């Protein structure tokens, strides 16, 4: 008996030992992607330097502490890291279940922005001010669109029918319209692009994709004809094309021209930290937010710009790798969608500073000043980690 019991217990202990070793190997915590996290942190670090340099002279002349923007951004980073950990810990498959709730929350917040509770800055109503912090719900809505559409496509199990596609379009276009009304053309383009990439990755039939592209083009033409897009937005979209003309004195063309001068004058190795004249003398407007890339390109040159683009490309690679490794369609779609948002934002933002894309208010991920953006991006990194950790 005793022996039997003991024997049985020993066997169980051994079995449990083996089992625990087996489970430990597959434990999520053992499958973090350190490259992903370190790259994101490195980009934020570069962002801090660039933000500090961009506003150093302006803050000094205004008599404000030179760390005014930096301290806020550091706090956002701290929150972002917590958010990343929280998002990584909760199994992303639960997120799929709650995606309708996230979508509703995002819609409510977007509605609030347009209500009198929202705050208008530079002619756009994009923010809700909460206790000294400006919340930008469109950043949250980006996440909402991503996971709702991914969940819908996941549920159709690789064979999305017309119903799923229509529902996904509805889920995308409602927040797109709300963001468009702010007006924030750039972010609404991000929404549409995200859903388009998800359709591509989620197995939507080629003929539907072609139909949607044609429909989209017609919609844009109608929008232009009926002047749904306000003229200032249109002129911003076209101004970059004649930025090289010195006589172009309109605001957007001025921005683009000064941006080009900043980037070009950085040359190969840059002028050195705090030595950028375009940067320190405020020739490039918004150079701590949307035009942050000009600071890096002017002060660190082609080398600095390449390092930043290289790090972003590293994120893209890790994200695509996670999408391929993902255990289920939802994971693959979310990871692919995050890569889609990242690459579009990088292309539109950097493209705008070097004159190949129109000026739209899209920040450069991890680098541009802006708490909500930074927190959301760390949340998205957490989501990627989550998918990566649970790939077995």
């Amino acid at each position: 008996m005793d022996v039997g019991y003991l024997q049985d217990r020993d066997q169980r202990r051994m079995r449990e030992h083996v089992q625990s070793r087996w489970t430990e190997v597959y434990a999520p915590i053992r499958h973090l992607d350190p490259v992903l996290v370190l790259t994101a942190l490195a980009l934020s670090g570069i962002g801090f330097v660039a933000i500090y340099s961009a506003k150093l002279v302006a803050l000094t002349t205004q008599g404000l502490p030179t760390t005014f923007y930096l301290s806020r951004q550091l706090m956002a980073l701290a929150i972002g890291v917590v958010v990343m950990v929280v998002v990584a810990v909760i199994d992303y498959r639960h997120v799929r279940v709650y995606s309708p709730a996230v979508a509703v929350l995002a819609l409510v917040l977007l509605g609030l922005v347009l209500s009198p509770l929202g705050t208008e800055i530079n002619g756009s109503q994009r923010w809700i001010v909460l206790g000294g912090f400006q919340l930008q719900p469109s950043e949250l809505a980006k996440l909402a669109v991503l996971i709702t559409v991914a969940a819908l496509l996941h549920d159709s199990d690789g064979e999305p029918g017309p119903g799923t596609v229509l529902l996904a379009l509805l889920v995308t276009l409602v927040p797109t319209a709300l963001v468009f009304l702010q007006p924030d053309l750039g972010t609404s383009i991000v929404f549409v692009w995200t859903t388009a990439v998800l359709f591509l990755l989620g197995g939507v039939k080629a003929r539907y994709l072609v139909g949607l592209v044609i429909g989209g083009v017609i919609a844009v033409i109608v929008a232009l004809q009926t002047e749904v897009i306000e003229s200032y937005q249109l002129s911003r979209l076209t101004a970059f094309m004649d930025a090289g003309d010195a006589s172009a004195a309109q605001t957007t063309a001025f921005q683009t021209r000064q941006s080009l001068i900043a980037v070009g004058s950085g040359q190969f190795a840059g002028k050195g930290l705090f030595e950028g004249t375009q940067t320190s003398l405020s020739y490039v407007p918004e150079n701590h937010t949307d035009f942050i890339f000009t600071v890096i390109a002017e002060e660190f040159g082609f080398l600095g710009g390449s390092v930043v683009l290289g790090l972003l490309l590293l994120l893209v690679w890790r994200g695509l790798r996670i999408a391929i490794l993902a255990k289920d369609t939802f994971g693959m779609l979310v990871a692919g969608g995050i890569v889609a948002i990242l690459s579009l934002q990088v292309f539109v933002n950097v493209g705008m500073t070097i004159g190949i894309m129109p000026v739209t208010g899209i920040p450069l991920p991890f680098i541009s000043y802006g708490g909500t953006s930074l927190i959301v991006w760390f949340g998205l990194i957490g989501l990627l980690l989550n998918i990566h950790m649970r790939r077995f």
Partner: protein
Amino acid sequence: MAPPSSESSSVLRLTFFAVLVIALFVSLFARLWFLQVLAGDRYVELADSNRLRTVITEAPRGAILGSDGEELVRNRPALTISADRRALLDDAGEPADEEAARVLERLAVLLELDVDEVIERLSSQRRSPFRPVPIEIDVAPEIVFAVQERRELFPGVVPETLPVREYPQGSLAAHLVGYIGEISEAELLRPDFADYRAGDLVGRTGLEQSYEADLRGTAGQRLLVVNARGDVLDVQRDRDPIQGADLVTTLDLDLQAATEELLVDGIEASRDIQRDDGQFLPSVAGSAVVLDARSGAVLSMASYPSYDPREFVGGVTHAYLAELLDEENESPLINRAIAGEYPPGSVFKPVSGAAMVEGGQITPRGTVECAPAFELGGNTFRNWNRGVNEGPMDLADALRRSCDTYFYELAFDQWLAEERQEDPDEVLIDVAERFGFGVRAGLDLPGEKAGRVPGRDWREDYWLNNRDDYCRQAELADPGTAARVAFTDLCQYGGLWRGGDAVNSSIGQGDVLSSPLQVASSYQAIANDGVRMRPHLGGRVVAPDGSLVREIEPEVIGDLGIDDQTLAVIQEGLEEVVMHPRGTGRSAFADFPLDEIPVAGKTGTAEVRPKVPYAWFVGYAPVDDPKIVVVVNVEQGGGGSQTAAPIVRNIMAHYFGVELAEEARFEAGEEILD
């Protein structure tokens, strides 16, 4: 789980997506390489031109003074309404906002200008945006008060004082002082204006132009580092403006005023003189020059009609300028004393006399019958003193009586002698050049004319240029008419320098031209025992702190190169013109104290057909130790003895203190049309 086929399909789709993303990144890298590495240099320049602004502070211009230090031109602070372009206009040159538009409108009403005019002046690219742009210079004090009292109505409008040219002596010496104006675009392209910038003022005529380099001073320059809003953050280089140096002229301002007054009075009074045909003398214009007989310094110089340089301060109006340029008004801008080209007439006779002696046609004391006329090839060249044979004359007598036939005969002999030479040595041209005819004297004023002493080469060139016209006229004229004969002759032989040409030149007619300054300069040489001095207006240049920058020393141009006896005989003849009871200039000096202040001179009456003759008189005094040379020319003023000599007499009377200009009256002299 998805089926295997779906598995491979999703990898395919991800790969497609990955390629798309990589393409986006590659295009970013490529564009970045182009901007920063290939086109980087250009953008470095653009970045520098962005942040560095040069601000020029004009230097106050130097003053122009009379010889005794009295100011002719100086700077005066003028009340000015300026405006800040950056505050009122946007980059496109439109009002920056509604408030700016209202301010501009108020300003326009205040200055009695169109709003468009205000905006145009404000956006003038000739002005630096980093200092207020002058909208209206020299405004009434009330306008400045209006702006100062209601500052809130005029944000961006700046009342200030700017230096402008001021003329304490009014229009005195207007032709000599000249005026200044904004530099033109054409001038900016010229190498001698290399260090000028758009909007700079530059001397346009007169001493303002010829002493530009001294008067101008050195503009201050500040190199500013500015940010995007235009705030000045740093000054990289700061150089204060250096005021221009003052020019002390040789002008005796008292004599200048007297000369101008006596010239105008004389010209106007002479219009009451009736000619033989019953017409009054037109006396449309005239000029006068007074030189220091020893140094060649210009003591005074006047040209009638004149203008008011004060009209040029802050920019001349088109209407006034058109008035000044109109030939109907006798072109008042022209300084006739140096730019008027007239036949010298009989005042040229000392020159041709010296030439005949040098050419060996006669000795200074040799005599020629002063016949009533000289016949040449069917043409009759008459003496001015119609029908009277004045008997044998030497050079001195011929000058005293201004005997034309004396010169006709000798000039013809000289012409004959030259015609016999292989390569004719044209004595008159050489001698005239030594006297200063046909060449510029080098006066320090712009616009001096060289005049003309014609000869064989000139005649041939002139003919070659006009032959086609002569020949066409010959064909057009009816056969048998005088015009046909004359033009046919000109067409065929117009290049020949004939005896008649030489005869005409000998009495300063024909194609001889000279300016009053040239006449004055040649008599200065005669008075100064043959040494010709460069006429000059500049005395010395003095720095703002009073230190001497440079002295403009009297300069010898050359010697008349005639022997002492010839010069003595010429001097004697000129002296007798005034001192001898039968001298042609005597009548004008009837009540002049000639025993105390002996005067030498020469009358001249230049034929400019079909106009009334031009009156000349040139004189120097005192004969034994000449102090001044005075020349007066009156266009269509009749006889030199009649109109010009009395004006010279009055100028001399003022200079020597015999009778001041204020008391003097114009008393016409005897009408001698020599």
